[in-house]
């Protein structure tokens, strides 16, 4: 695999939820990209690139879809880039999801801005994918129609009950696991959500893979910035989100 940094023209740009932008870019790196990998976006005026997950990959046309939320100054700059302008993307980064047998029933659990990386991963599972997507409130809901388009059965949960079920993702997850077999769980979202999902998976003995976050510098594994403690046998080792992850076997994470 090779990684490259290129200025990538923005082909489309849409404000799909409060502070959330959905862009397609022309990015030759798409050819090598896998679901769950991410890119490093160079933001004008900033030293460090911002990590953003790949939401969809169009290998044939060399395009990547990114969905990002304005959180701070770097992502604010990203929301200012218009169609026709370029974003410099270092990509593809990380290992992404190891999807395994897409004939299994899979459950995708996403929280907020953690939902996008699950979309490309859900594609091959088509009809036997369940997506349980949690958001703060109705204005934050994203990608429901996209998951449905690829054949997933979608359950939306909002904390305030303004759309779908009320509360957090774990109750609908347990309900889904109670009602039918599940071969694997893929999750991305805030750390407490991931910990809860991992707990549910562990209790039921279902393999679970989670996409983790850490502050990064190089994005490729060279600078050792993005360490997280990971269980290896009896030991705890520092693994690196950008190189060994961002997706990890949930059983390895020190929650």
């Amino acid at each position, binding site marked *: 695999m090779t990684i490259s940094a290129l200025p990538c023209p923005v082909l489309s740009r849409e404000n799909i939820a409060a502070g959330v932008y959905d862009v397609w870019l022309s990015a030759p790196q798409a050819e090598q990209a896998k679901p769950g990998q991410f890119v490093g976006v160079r933001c004008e005026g900033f*030293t460090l690139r911002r990590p953003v997950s790949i939401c969809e990959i169009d290998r044939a046309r060399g395009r990547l879809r990114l969905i990002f939320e304005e959180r701070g100054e770097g992502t604010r700059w990203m929301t200012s880039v218009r169609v026709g302008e370029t974003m410099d993307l270092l990509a593809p980064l990380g290992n992404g999801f190891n999807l395994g047998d897409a004939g299994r029933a899979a459950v995708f659990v996403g929280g907020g801005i953690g939902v996008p990386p699950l979309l490309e991963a859900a594609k091959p599972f088509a009809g036997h994918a369940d997506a349980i997507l949690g958001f703060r409130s109705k204005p934050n809901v994203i990608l429901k129609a996209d998951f449905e388009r690829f054949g997933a059965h979608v359950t939306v949960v909002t904390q305030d009950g303004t759309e779908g079920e009320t509360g957090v993702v774990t109750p609908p997850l347990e309900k889904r696991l109670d009602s039918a077999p599940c071969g694997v769980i893929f999750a991305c979202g805030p750390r407490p959500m991931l910990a809860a999902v991992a707990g549910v998976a562990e209790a039921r003995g279902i393999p679970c893979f989670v996409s983790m976050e850490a502050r990064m510098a190089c994005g490729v594994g060279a600078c*050792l910035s993005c360490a997280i403690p990971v269980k290896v046998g009896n030991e705890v080792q520092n693994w690196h989100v950008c190189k060994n992850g961002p997706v990890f076997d949930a059983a390895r994470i020190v929650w």
Partner: protein
Amino acid sequence: MDKQSSALAVTVAGVTFRNPVIAASGTFGFGREYAKVFDLSGLGGIALKGMTLKSRSGNPSPRVAETPSGMLNCIGLQNPGVEYFLKNELPFLQKQGTRLISNIAGDAPEDYAALAARLDGEPVDMLELNISCPNVKTGGMAFGVTCEGAAEVTRAVRAATKKPLCVKLSPNVTDIASIAQAVEDAGADALSLINTLLGMRIDIRTRRPILSNNVGGLSGPAVFPVALRCVWQVAKAVRIPVIGMGGIATWEDAVQMFLAGASAVQVGTATFTDPYAMLAIRDGLADYLETEHIAHISELTGQIRPN
């Protein structure tokens, strides 16, 4: 590769680098990762990640924070230890067609010496003594901030190795030139500077420092003026060659470093912003020499005309 004319080749402490642009320690790991981004033979050399005798796990995350025109880090010398390096990293590195500088650290002069001795017969081209790491509790910067400490470690390592010996200096001192002289007197063949400036950043929401270690090392363009001043002060004070670094992001920055007295440069943080930064600096230097009809890069070294 065409730009790597002989005009760019430099010899520092007996080691010839095909061009004077070297990856700075800790920003380039053991080269493996960036080998996926570009051909490492395009670099003059690689200063490898700071290494210790035994493996170290470093500090917890977060280990980095963005700052205006720069960044803070508190990696804390995470590394797999020298034996792992020799077995699993060096063979790969040897095949990359670039010079290798082993950046070594320890808790006591004996550790440094033992590590230097262990590397003595191995195919690394130069040792870089890291006595300036601000992110570890013992050793590290503690040695780098006094003339006696710096000289002691240098002497211990000098006695333990026949390799060309470069000592990396900390800018967090009152008088960097006198430390440079002490290190020169203790047997160093070259100096590299600057390591990071000690800095901090607080998350006002949580009221906690962003870095797990509270403080960390500042690098990137923000520190360039300080680095340039240090290189100038040191180059005037010693006879051994100086490798300049700290915030270099463009070939113009590199030219300033040469004029201030550097014989080669290292580039760290700029690679994070643009992974091809070192190649662009190298090519920019080559173009500059050509445009200005300068036969060789070494003709720039120390050619500052002070006011």
